[in-house]
Structures are given as structure tokens and as C-alpha cells.
């Protein structure tokens, strides 16, 4: 049974559909990467999975249970974590307080998970008493991921985690993503840096106009000349 199983999903804002029948499935051990041109519905798909917009048709299963159209806080309880692309930290609160807020529904986790998050992201431990708003973009992204990891999710959704970061930080974030996945968290992320992201992907989904165009392993998609020509800039 896949960890996440989205079947024939139609959805969007209001009555308009941006997603026109998307299928997506990943296992708990996998890193899934969604790529595609602007306006393909990549972030929309992620938001539909996290209950931030309405799914008008189709179904989404997490661990075999239907979850579509549940509110985000219920999804957090069921083991899903979401890192938005922007505004993903509480800027006036310290790094540690940001992380504590992630475990708001599971206060028993705080002590144990703080240790683990600091293991994943050592720079955060040093800066734990500093307001998150004062950190650099890459460290802020770490805070955002750490916050989402605090309730020990089975599945972590990342919306363009490397947007606006220098190549150095981009590689660092991808490294962390792999480590988090190795620790048993399924990952589904949207990426603009398609080549680098597909390189670490167990499964890649190429979307265009709200539909699946190619679905394969990351390596196979990178090797596919059609994908390369149309979506990866040659």
C-alpha cells in the first residue's frame, strides 16, 4: 500500500479546476519530486493534498485512508507535514519556539524531537534563541522543515524548498531532504531546480496544464530525451 495515493484529482480555487486529473503515488521510503513549467499546477497539487484548496473530483489516500478535503490541522494529526514556499516561519519567535509550535498538537514530542531536529540541522542548535526572522534564507528553510518534522510526520510536503537560495544552500537542503527520507519520512516536493531535484528523486512527476505528462524514476526522467527537450531546457 503506498503512503500517499492521489487518483485522478481535479481541483482548484473556487469552481475553476487547475488540476485536471492528476495521479500521484509514493511509498514511505521514497522521495517524490514534482516538476513542470510555470502554471502546470505543481504547487496547486501540493496544496490540494494538504487540504488548502478544494478537491472537486478524484480521491487522495494517506496510508489507505481518504483524506481529501480534510482541514490542514486534521492532516497534521494524521501524519502529514507541509512547508509552504513563503512565509514559512514565525519571524518574531525564536528558532526553538518555532519548532515547539510545530509540535503544538503533540507536546510530548517536544523534548525528543528538538534533539532530532537539531541533529538534522546543526546550525539551528546554535541559533536556537535567535528570532527566526533574523536568519538567512537557507537557515529559515531549515527552521521551516524542522517545524514540520516536529510532530513526526509520515509524509513531508515541501513547496520549492530551494527557491531563492544560492547553489551551495540548494545542495545542502537536498542533502537534508535525503537524510530526512532515510530516517523514514516520505517526501513529496515541488521544485524549480528540476535537474538537481530529479537527481535525488526516487519518483518524478512531470506535470503540464494540470495533467501528468511523464511519471518515472528520477534517473529515467533525466535520461529521457523527450523530458529533457520539453521540460529541462535541453
Amino acid at each position, binding site marked *: 500500500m503506498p503512503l500517499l495515493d492521489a487518483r485522478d484529482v481535479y481541483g482548484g480555487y473556487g469552481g475553476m479546476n487547475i488540476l485536471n486529473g492528476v495521479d500521484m503515488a509514493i511509498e514511505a521510503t521514497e522521495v517524490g519530486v514534482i516538476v513542470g513549467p510555470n502554471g502546470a499546477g505543481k504547487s496547486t497539487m501540493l496544496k490540494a493534498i*494538504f487540504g488548502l484548496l478544494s478537491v472537486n473530483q478524484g480521491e487522495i489516500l494517506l496510508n489507505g485512508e481518504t483524506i481529501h478535503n480534510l482541514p490542514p*490541522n486534521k492532516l*497534521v494529526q494524521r501524519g502529514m507535514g507541509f512547508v509552504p514556499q513563503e512565509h*514559512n516561519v*514565525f519571524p*518574531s519567535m525564536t528558532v526553538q*519556539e518555532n519548532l*515547539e*509550535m510545530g509540535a503544538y*498538537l503533540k507536546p510530548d514530542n517536544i523534548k525528543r524531537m528538538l534533539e532530532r531536529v537539531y541533529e538534522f540541522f546543526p546550525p539551528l542548535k546554535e541559533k536556537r534563541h535567535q528570532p527566526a526572522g533574523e536568519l538567512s534564507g537557507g537557515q529559515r528553510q531549515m527552521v521551516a522543515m524542522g517545524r514540520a518534522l516536529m510532530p513526526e510526520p509520515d509524509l513531508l510536503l515541501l513547496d520549492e524548498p530551494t527557491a531563492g537560495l544560492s547553489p551551495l544552500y540548494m545542495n545542502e537542503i537536498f542533502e537534508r531532504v535525503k537524510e530526512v527520507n532515510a530516517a523514514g519520512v516520505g517526501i513529496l516536493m515541488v521544485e524549480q531546480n528540476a535537474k538537481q531535484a530529479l537527481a535525488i528523486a526516487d519518483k518524478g512527476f512531470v506535470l503540464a496544464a494540470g495533467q501528468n505528462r511523464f511519471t518515472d524514476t528520477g534517473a529515467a526522467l533525466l535520461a529521457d530525451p523527450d523530458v529533457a527537450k520539453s521540460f529541462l531546457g535541453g
Partner: protein
Amino acid sequence: MNELVFFINNVVIAGSVSGSIYAMGAVGVTLIFSIMRFAHFAHGDMMTFGAFMVLLLTTLFPQAGAAIGIPTPILLMPLAMALTAALAVGIDRTFYKPLRAHGVKPIVMVIASLGVTLMLQGLIRLFAGTGGSSLYVDDRKEIFRLPVPIESVRVPVVITEPQLYLFGLTILSVIGLHLFLSRSRLGKAMRAMSDNPDLAQASGINTNTIVAVTWMLAGGLAAIAGTLLSLDVTFKPDLSFFLLLPIFAAAIVGGVGHPFGAIAGGFVVGFAESLAVFNWSVLLRPFRDSLPEWLELPANLAFVGTEYKIVVPFFILVAILVWRPTGIFKGKVIT
């Protein structure tokens, strides 16, 4: 030295009294703004309502305090705080929540709160009448005259019992608020929601609970401030007209959305008021002989007359909006 004691009585004590009251009102305004993003104009009337509840309860049980030896209004204040907190939550459920659910613009909420102002004032007038009344029903207001242990000083430092309670409760409230916001799970969740409401919701924070807690805190603090002000002066149904401008000025001076800024702002406005109405010729009088002859010391040398005290917060408000619109601490007015 007599003049210095006069200064202490009229500026230091008077300024701290108004400062404490404005601070507690401004904290409520700032908390409501940071959670719900609108200026709550009915806040002054929430303060009046708290005092009105004390008046009602004291009239019902005038003897209650005598048994333990504290003034009845003070003894019954916690009950009035609870009732005011309940009223605040009730008003939110009935008037503001449906508007929020429709996603109206903040200005609509502000206008709604003006409506609540008129409604609350009408309601209080209906029961308490239009005139002033004393919150002391059976008790007497204790006034302490503390002689200064210096021989030449004949004027005592004057402080009243409600003022002492006010100072004590202000310090307690500030410490309590600090601990709540920095240590407790709910307090941190409140700051999180103020910082980033969407992310707070995505973290599983129940925003309805936070909204209710905000109203309870703001209502409770408003009740303390309103009661102690009415004890110190007198209870009037239109008290809020003299409170609204200073508490908004205080919240903006401190930087809207900054609870501790609001407290600082409250004291800034309170002291500015008492400094502005203070008769400075009193302090200059001892140096009368050394002043040049052509300079005659007027009998009254104050920046503004006591009756125009309200222009002081107005001036502060204009000045801060022109020169530093984000307030002392960087607030959320302009981001």
C-alpha cells in the same frame, strides 16, 4: 523641598496612575489588533463595563469586603473581570465573528466596534443612570498622607488606597502577561498566530481558541483598569470618551501588536499628560529671587490647562504618526 513633594504628587504619582490605566487598556487593544487585525474602538467601554459590574456587585453585596478587611469593590473585582471577559467573548461571537467569517475588510470591523461602543454605553446608562456614582458603597476611600522625614517639608506625599492597588495589580499583570506569552503553550500559540496566522493554522493551532483567549485577556485587563480608575475618581457611563484616545495613542506609540510596547506607551502618554498640565511656576518659585527682574513669574505656568488634558495624547498621536509611524518598538502599523 515642599515644591518637590508637590511635583511628586502631581507628576510622578498622577502620571503613574494614568500610565497604569492606559497601559492595561492599550495592551488589550494591541492584543486584539495582533490577533484579529482591527482597531477595537469599543475597548474603552469594556473598561467602563468592568467598573459597572463592580458597581452592580458592590451594590448587591455591600458588606462582602468588611469580613476580610479589604474594600468590597476590590474583593468583587475578580468576579467583574470574569463577567467582562465573558461579555468580550460574547460580543465577539455575536457581532465580530460573523463578519470575520465573511472575510470583511478591517474597516468594517472598526465600524462594527463603534456600534458596540454605542450599544454598551446605552446599556450601562439604562442601569447606572447618566450621572456619576461612587464605587464605594459601604466602604470609605482610604487616603494616605505620608509625611516626608525632612524638617522643612510640610507637604505630605498623598496616595490613595485604590492607587496602591492599581500599582500592585499593574506590576502583577505585566509579570503575568510576560510569563504567559513567553512560557505557556497557549501564549506562544498566540504570538505564533499574531506572526503568521496561516502557518499557525497549518501547525494545528486552533485559531478559535486563541481568539477567545485574546478576548478574555483583553476583557479582564480592561475590567481591572476601569474599576481602579472609577475607584480613584468616580464611575461615569461615558468614561470611555476620556480613555479611548489615550489608549490608542499608547498602543500606537508602543508599536501596534507589541504588548510590552503598549505598556511603555501607556506610561509615556500618562507622564506626558501630567507633565503638560503641571504648573511649572511652582518649581520655579524657590528661584524667584535669582530670576531677572523683568521676568515676572505667572501664577500658573502649565503647557495646557487641566480641562484640555485630552489634547496631549492627541498631539502625541499625530507626532508619532508623522515621525515614527511604527512606534517605539517596531509594530505592525506599516510593514
